């Protein structure tokens, strides 16, 4: 763990430096253009400082994004308007709520399907191939249609977005749980049979506990997938609220700094949510004596 801290920091620093250089290079043409029209000659220092402080840069420098993020989160909180429509916290909350709902629905559906697949031979043979096939279909492509159709029959707001998240997140759970519920060895199953355990008892006392490591591994993937689903689900609603809407309105108006800050916010949200599951995993597994 500690061994990799130094390399990670080095790589991260290198990435930041690269970012600054790239920002200077990408924004330079616009800076030159502006100077030419104003009829002034830019020195190298002026050029660099201009490329790092443009209003609509091709690639904003990290400190510009940082400033924008502080303006739309921390500064809003200080003024007591943490949930105004201009606040990124508000948009993150919108995205988070549909992510969380979709994740819960998807996990529930996934576990239910997995139990059906493990306990019913016909279901195993007929559903499993389709579950796998369903993921080779670019589901995100039908996101706009789901939103519009559900709107047409009077369901709008959180539910349609959560449906898309659900569709994306149930798959890793099904696959992981089927593997997990089948992970007890023949010897363990024989032993619990000699104790004349019923099917229900076998499920609660052997199959479910031994599936836990698999469950958590899939929950992490499912959470990341469901965040992507929520963000894409916000695109066709006409940029009302949420991080996806910020991305879209930013791309309409060329507000690159806004796009990047929404992007970083989404990344932070993903890191927090996946980290949270990792924490629950560590606590649960160590209480169960598995890790």
């Amino acid at each position, binding site marked *: 763990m500690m*061994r*990799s801290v*130094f*390399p*990670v*920091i*080095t*790589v*991260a620093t290198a*990435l930041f430096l690269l970012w600054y250089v790239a920002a200077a290079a*990408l924004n330079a043409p616009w800076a030159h253009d502006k100077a030419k029209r104003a009829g002034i000659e830019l020195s190298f220092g002026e050029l660099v400082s201009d490329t790092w402080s443009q209003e609509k840069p*091709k690639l904003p420098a990290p400190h510009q994004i940082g400033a924008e993020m502080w303006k739309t989160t921390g500064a809003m909180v200080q003024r007591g308007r943490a949930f105004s429509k201009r606040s990124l916290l508000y948009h993150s909350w919108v995205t988070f709520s549909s992510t969380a709902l979709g994740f819960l629905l998807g996990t529930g559906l996934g576990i239910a399907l997995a139990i059906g697949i493990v306990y019913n*031979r*016909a279901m*195993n*043979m*007929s*559903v*499993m*191939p*389709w579950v796998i*096939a369903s*993921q*080779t*279909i*670019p*589901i*995100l*492509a*039908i996101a*706009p*249609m789901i939103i*519009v*159709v559900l709107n*047409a*029959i009077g369901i709008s707001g959180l539910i349609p977005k959560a449906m898309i998240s659900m569709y994306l997140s149930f798959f890793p759970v099904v696959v992981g749980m089927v593997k997990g519920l089948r992970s007890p060895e023949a010897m363990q199953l024989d032993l619990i049979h000699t104790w004349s355990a019923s099917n229900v008892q076998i499920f609660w006392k052997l199959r479910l506990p031994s599936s836990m490591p698999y469950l958590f591994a899939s929950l*992490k993937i499912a959470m*990341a997938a469901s*965040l*992507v689903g929520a*963000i*894409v689900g916000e*695109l*066709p609603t006409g940029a009302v609220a949420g*991080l*996806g809407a910020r*991305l*879209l309105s*930013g*791309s309409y108006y*060329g507000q*690159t700094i806004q*796009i*990047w800050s929404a*992007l970083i916010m*989404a*990344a932070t949200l*993903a*890191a927090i949510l*996946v980290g949270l599951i990792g924490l629950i995993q560590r606590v649960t597994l160590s209480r169960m004596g598995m890790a």
Partner: protein
Amino acid sequence: MMIWLAAGLLIWAAGWRLNNALSERPTDDFTRFAIPAIFGVTIIAIWECLVRGLDISPVLLPAPSQIALTFAGSLNILWQDFVQTAIKGALTGYAIGCGAAILISIAIDRFPFLQRGLLPVGNFVAALPIIGIAPILVMWFGFDWHSKAAVVVVMVFFPMLVNTVQGLRESDALQRDLMRTYAASYWQTLFYLRLPAAMPFIFNGLKIATTLALIGAIVAEFFGSPIRGMGFRISTSVGQLSMDLVWAEIVVASLAGSGFYGGVALMERSVTFWHPSQRSKAL
């Protein structure tokens, strides 16, 4: 109207009975193919019956027969969109992204320092909602397929990198020692031992990347595209409420996705025939 509902119910019961009966038989090639096929056909038949029986408006959910008609009727448009999105956008980006990831992971592999630093960063980035950079890349590379390919490159790069770096570590010390006793050079060890040993991991990454590539190319078109392409067609047809064309486009997308995945899986079977997960199927 009631007849359609009754027919739907009947088909459902029949499909259920048939599949239950078939699954009682020992598993062979026939049942392995027939049971999912019956399940799929049943679902489509029930869909058709429900749409007709309940008189669902085609704006909400078109019947499969109608989708099939639209599909056959607009083959030209669909082919044009397929070429624009799947071939130019997704496939180009897939090739560039996966190729670059494999080359870079070979470079990383020579430096354990970079390996320890880049792997956690790569793992982190692989879990991020990368699709969000689509609007930025559309801004940089313009509306045509180049920007879609760029989105695909970024999307497939990190899963591929993580998998390949992992795979290159697979050969164990004993095998590497053996290569050394043969006086094999670094490159010989790489080509004859470590790359073949990494193949199961590389193919795992390649398979994950196939679906990511199509998703990336389609979603990137939501942020601006020329007047062709699958994502463009889907978002404009939704606006015009011509759902049958949207569904036809989805059929194309799923055919392309399954074909792409299936192709890579076939390649995997012939390249990594020695791996236990492939071997057990042959027996």
